């Protein structure tokens, strides 16, 4: 087991390093922070002084090595805008993002899985068709369009809910609904097909032939098997939660990590962008590790493989 997770962890670290490296290079090739932050008409001496103070006059590989050395001593740098430590700049935004993403994720799972299971159990019924139409719609529609539609209906036409800001819990409803619906649609589709696949298996017929009631067949024999592929999708969704907040937070002017990322990219606030990307990469990788653990619990064949890998 240790060996199995050791190798997974190593792979995870390599992925994180690759992502961070890529972002480091692209950010530095795509615009000069000195000019963006100091302004185009700042005196050249001031711009040069800014470059020197942030080390931007060094060759890119020197900057890169300095950056990595700092990471390992726990220093992710300072924001170029206000000189504060980036860790606190990013961390103070995390609660706002979690306030959207956690309820949205609960909606994804709480609506998506039951809807998918129900649709599979009542295949070709009116409700199945309704669920599938909703799922395809939610799957195909980019989140910013859904966000605009919700604003149009609930803020502009009906005037029920605010369209931007973070002043009360009512401000969170539309962004949560936007993220919740899209993810639920995706999950409903995958759960339905996983469930249909399982219901067609021979062991389901065996369970019925044994004399189990249909509900016992579904609960005891179908769901755990259908959970195995579904967990993969949930893992992807869990990993993408912060990344997914980027668009929604921007549309609804929600002051979370996602919006901070967009603003920091526009400002070329390099250290902040790097810190956020590092955080997103780590959440994705951590979600994948969680999926691997869940696999081991759900699928006895995985346990065998880990035993063999260890042995």
């Amino acid at each position, binding site marked *: 087991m240790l060996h199995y997770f050791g190798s997974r962890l190593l792979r995870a670290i390599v992925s994180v390093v690759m992502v961070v490296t890529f972002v480091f290079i692209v950010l530095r090739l795509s615009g000069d922070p000195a000019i963006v932050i100091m302004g185009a008409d700042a005196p050249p001496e001031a711009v040069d002084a800014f470059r020197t103070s942030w080390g931007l006059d060094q060759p890119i590989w020197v900057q890169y090595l300095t950056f990595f050395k700092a990471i390992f001593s726990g220093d992710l740098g300072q924001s170029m805008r206000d000189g504060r430590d980036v860790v606190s700049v990013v961390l103070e935004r995390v609660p706002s993002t979690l306030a959207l993403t956690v309820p949205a994720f609960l909606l994804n799972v709480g609506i998506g899985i039951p809807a998918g299971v129900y649709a599979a159990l009542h295949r070709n019924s009116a409700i199945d068709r309704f669920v599938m139409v909703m799922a395809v719609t939610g799957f195909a529609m980019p989140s910013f369009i859904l966000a605009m539609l919700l604003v149009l209906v609930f803020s502009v036409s009906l005037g029920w809910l605010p369209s931007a800001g973070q002043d009360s819990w009512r401000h969170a409803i539309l962004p949560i609904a936007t993220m919740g619906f899209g993810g639920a649609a995706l999950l409903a589709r995958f759960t339905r097909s996983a469930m249909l696949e399982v219901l067609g*298996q*021979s*062991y389901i*017929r*065996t*369970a*019925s*032939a*044994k*004399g*189990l*009631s*249909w509900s016992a067949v579904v609960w*005891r*024999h179908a769901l*755990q*098997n259908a959970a*195995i592929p579904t967990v993969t999708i949930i893992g992807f969704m869990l990993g993408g939660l912060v990344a997914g907040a980027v668009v929604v937070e921007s549309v609804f002017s929600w002051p979370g990590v996602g919006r901070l990322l967009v603003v920091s990219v526009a400002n070329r606030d390099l250290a902040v962008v790097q810190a956020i990307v590092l955080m997103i990469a780590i959440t994705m990788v951590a979600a994948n590790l969680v999926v691997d653990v869940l696999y081991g619990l*759900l*699928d*006895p*064949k995985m346990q*065998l493989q880990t035993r063999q890998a260890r042995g």
Partner: protein
Amino acid sequence: MAFVQIRDMTVAFGTAPALRGISLSVERGEALGLVGESGCGKSITWLAALGLLPKSAKVGGSVRLDGAELIGATPAVLEPLRGGRIAMIFQDPASSLNPVHRIGRQIAEALALHRGMKGARARAEVIRLLDQVGIPDARNRLNAYPHELSGGQNQRVMIAMALAGEPELLVADEPTTALDVTIQAQILDLLGTIRRDTGMGLVLISHDLGVVSETCSRIAVMYAGRIVEEAPSDRIFAYPSHPYTRGLIGAMPPISGLRRKLVSIPGSVPEASRMPLGCAFAPRCSLVIPDCTRIDPAAGAVEPGHVAACIRATPAAVRAPIMESVMA
């Protein structure tokens, strides 16, 4: 009265008929073989009888178990029967067992359902059943998952699970088809032993006439959703009356005696949606006469206990020349 009495059973998926009127009875404790090519409706007959077909299947006719009607019966009536009075095992044991549950748990589930056994008593009974079906080291093996066992062992587990409900009849649907030849014989022996020990009836579904003839006292031959011939096993080999049965026998390699060329039946089974008028076997039959394509033959007695659905299957008159032409 027969233990199970199937009368004029029909099954259709959409507009395609899968069973076109089956009548069959199984006596208590009897071993009946059901033979035919894949797709002829052997399995569907028993899945339909136990209400195990998907809702899209339209089932007609009558199936009586000890006189009680099963077709159209509610789940509350059918569930205790399934596994409790009639158990079923299937072709591919590896995929017929739930891959995420330990085999002991899967057997214990049947014990809880049909015999109300729980906990240590159930565990002891699971061990006894695994012993009975010849799984070595049953005490530890009950913690195994299906993928940790071989195909033959999984089929033994399936049989143990079927025995858990102490059924009066076991329907074994191609139980040896997915197994190695050496294992096939072991499983058939096991079924025979269990029958001797428990007096349980057996319906052995197979495409292999040889497998069935060793185990069963009576054989029903199915073709394209109908029973075309039914007789005691020895009689069906000595005096096959339907040309299709003769074709099946002709296609079997002889165990002893002179080697001969195996004869295959030309053509293939007609599609359910494009059944020919008259006899369904007529397009492949070497003995076809004009009437065969006009008259859909009903099952008629060749002799007492021997039924065939062929307009040419009258005793003596046509038997001799037919034998020559098929076996030549």
